[in-house]
């Protein structure tokens, strides 16, 4: 029985192994566990079944995350960027195993999350936390702030009963919430304060890894800056590791050490932030960067405008998934999927433009 069948009994997932998979299987040295690597994703896939047939099982799949691999060091921040519908949120949830993992494995501190039982997973939960995008819908309206933040602390038994109240208040203070907010309800707060509550809820458990799923996109510019500064301060103080998912490239550039650019479920370019923002190699990254409006009326950039929308992840285009919108599309792109290759100092690109040189 293979891993895939073990995880999803009853669902037949039998995509043919592509050239990319074969290649990446041989190139796995970087994804081996070593000291300091807190999170390793190895060929993670998440397919959602579509169009179920009573006899055959699902006939189609939404390939939300399709073979994503990366390694993240302790205390660093990985930014994941891409358009909506490219699978960044699904990847975030899959790393936490809020979704089941269709194939591949996620190693947190050397243990494979994909194969853990419920009980084992529960013990691991305090170490990995998530901050959601919308602070208006991710807080229960019927719980006071202290309870929201402290619920998991009590549930996991992190502190004794006597110290519980002081502990929660201390966490609130860390995140810039005054102690008299303890008994208030979420509706009494503005968006920025709510996002602070969400951050406090995540930090109350002393996590090692925090997945931030667009934590600032629902907020105003001035509040955005406050929250980003808070996240950065907390990282410096407690040595947190972040996976920062966002579609706002300027925020990602500010906060991350490494960046992975996703398109239709696959990573098309990854590397250190400076490299990607200074010298983007993949045509998609170039287009993304040039689309960001600059607050200076004198700068008239040569916009690369991508035509059309992101294709459906149910039937992704053959070959390179980006070829339908790429302005540098060649014949080879339409048939052969490109391989994520290293072009020096960890700057990896999946594009035929460079592989031929």
């Amino acid at each position, binding site marked *: 029985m293979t891993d895939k069948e073990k995880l999803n009994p009853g669902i037949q997932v039998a995509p043919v192994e592509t050239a990319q998979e074969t290649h990446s299987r041989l190139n796995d040295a970087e994804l081996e566990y070593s000291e300091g690597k807190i999170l390793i994703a190895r060929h993670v896939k998440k397919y959602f079944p579509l169009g179920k047939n009573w006899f055959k099982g699902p006939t189609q799949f939404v390939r939300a995350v399709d073979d994503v691999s990366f390694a993240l060091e302790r205390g660093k921040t990985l930014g994941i960027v891409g*358009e*909506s519908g490219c699978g960044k949120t699904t990847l975030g949830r899959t790393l936490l195993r809020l979704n089941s993992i269709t194939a591949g494995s996620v190693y947190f501190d050397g243990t494979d999350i994909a194969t853990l039982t419920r009980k084992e997973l529960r013990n691991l939960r305090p170490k990995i936390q998530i901050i959601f995008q919308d602070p208006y819908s991710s807080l229960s309206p019927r719980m006071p702030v202290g309870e929201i933040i402290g619920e998991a602390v009590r549930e996991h038994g992190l502190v004794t009963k*006597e110290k519980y109240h002081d502990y929660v208040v201390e966490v609130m203070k860390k995140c810039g919430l005054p102690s*008299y907010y*303890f*008994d208030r309800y979420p509706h009494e707060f*503005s968006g*920025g304060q709510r996002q602070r509550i969400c951050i406090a809820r995540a930090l109350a458990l002393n996590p090692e890894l925090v997945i931030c799923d667009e934590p600032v996109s629902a907020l*105003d*510019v*001035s*509040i*955005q*800056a*406050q929250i*980003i*500064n808070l996240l*950065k301060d907390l990282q410096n103080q407690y040595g947190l590791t972040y996976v920062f998912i966002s*579609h*706002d*490239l*300027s*925020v990602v*550039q*500010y906060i991350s050490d490494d960046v992975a650019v996703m398109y239709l479920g696959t990573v098309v370019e990854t590397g250190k932030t400076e490299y990607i*923002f*200074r010298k983007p190699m993949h045509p998609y990254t170039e*287009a*993304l*960067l*040039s*689309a*960001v*409006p*600059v*607050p*200076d*009326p*004198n*700068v008239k950039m040569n*916009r690369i*405008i*991508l035509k*059309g*929308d*992101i294709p459906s992840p149910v039937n992704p285009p053959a070959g390179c998934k980006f070829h339908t919108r790429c302005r540098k599309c060649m014949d080879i792109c339409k048939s052969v999927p490109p391989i994520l290759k290293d072009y020096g100092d960890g700057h990896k690109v999946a594009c035929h433009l460079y592989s031929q040189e």
Partner: protein
Amino acid sequence: MKITDKIFQSKEKRLAQKKDRAKHYVSGKEIHDISKENLKITRALEKQANRKNVPEAEYLTKMHDPNNIVEFDDLHTYFFTDAGVVKAVDGASFDIPKKSIVGVVGESGCGKSVTSLSLMRLLQAPSGQIFSGEIRFNAKDGKAYNIAKMPRYAINQIRGKEMTMIFQEPMTSLNPVFRIGFQLDEVSFLHVPGITREGAKQKSIAMLKLVGMAMPENTYNQYPHELSGGMRQRVMIAMSLACDPRLIIADEPTTALDVTIQAQILDLLREIKTKIDGSIMLITHDLGVIAEMADYVVVMYAGRIIEKGTAHEIFENPLHPYTIGLERSKPKIQQKVDRLYTIPGTVPNPINMPDYCYFRDRCSKRCDRCDGKYPELRQVSPTHTVSCYLYDELADQYAKGKAGERK
């Protein structure tokens, strides 16, 4: 911890809470009185708006400058709520010149959307009312209307025909149970007298083609849910173009979209502006979008305009501390900063605004004069005005120079 300590602590806490809440607390009797008072005002205003057969002379005015499409003149838009009067727009005056893009920036809750809704007369009645002030609109037929005084039936003739609006959320502004074609045709049926069904269809398809739809005939027969966010926003733009408007109000047209789609839509808006030869009032909180699109910028804070000028003036020489803070708090691509600048605190409570400068408590450059009354909007250059005591000298200098010229 002893039980007595616990009780004592909780009592202390409760007292602190009580004190805190007392600031915003409104008793039942007060609510009753407030709503009674509000009802008097709103009923009178509603009666005014719902009249039939009003002589045109009552709402005709004259433009101060015939080169403007819209002139806001000391506009006050209030919301009469049970907790008190919310002055959402409190004395805004600015112009939208012909063939230009005017950008309105500010945080959420600063009144930028309400300004545009007042212009469209789409305020949530009966609580939302234009209390005083003028909005002069330069119509196609050469007449100038005072939108604030217009009765409902008269505004229906202009709205959707000469000024149109593109909303933020394209999914909620299209009706999910009707086809795109039906919703587009409706505009023509309402505003073009004697148009046939076939004629309306032709027009709608032409509009869809204009906004860059790949297969307009197909889209005509589709439902909104079948389209992606960017495509829906294109449909909204097509709908707003159906009657050759003079003014398009775009209320955060790209906030819900991706950067790549945002670039497409902004490009389209710019193209359309030259095609229809009209003006755009662009409302957004993204300074990048404003810098790229706008010719003139209006910065709003807590219902008032604090600074306005051309885009170059606002971005190269921002004066008001709020404008400077807004610009500095956004991380910029290709620019490394160690720490982002933040404006401390949040927008003050809209009920019972203080009489000193609304930004005083958050301002990093406040001086003793800021305790005085709200600073006036003063000119510092022919197009640049700012409302801050810091620039009184600059404004005095300018006024002196101007007076000297006249002599």
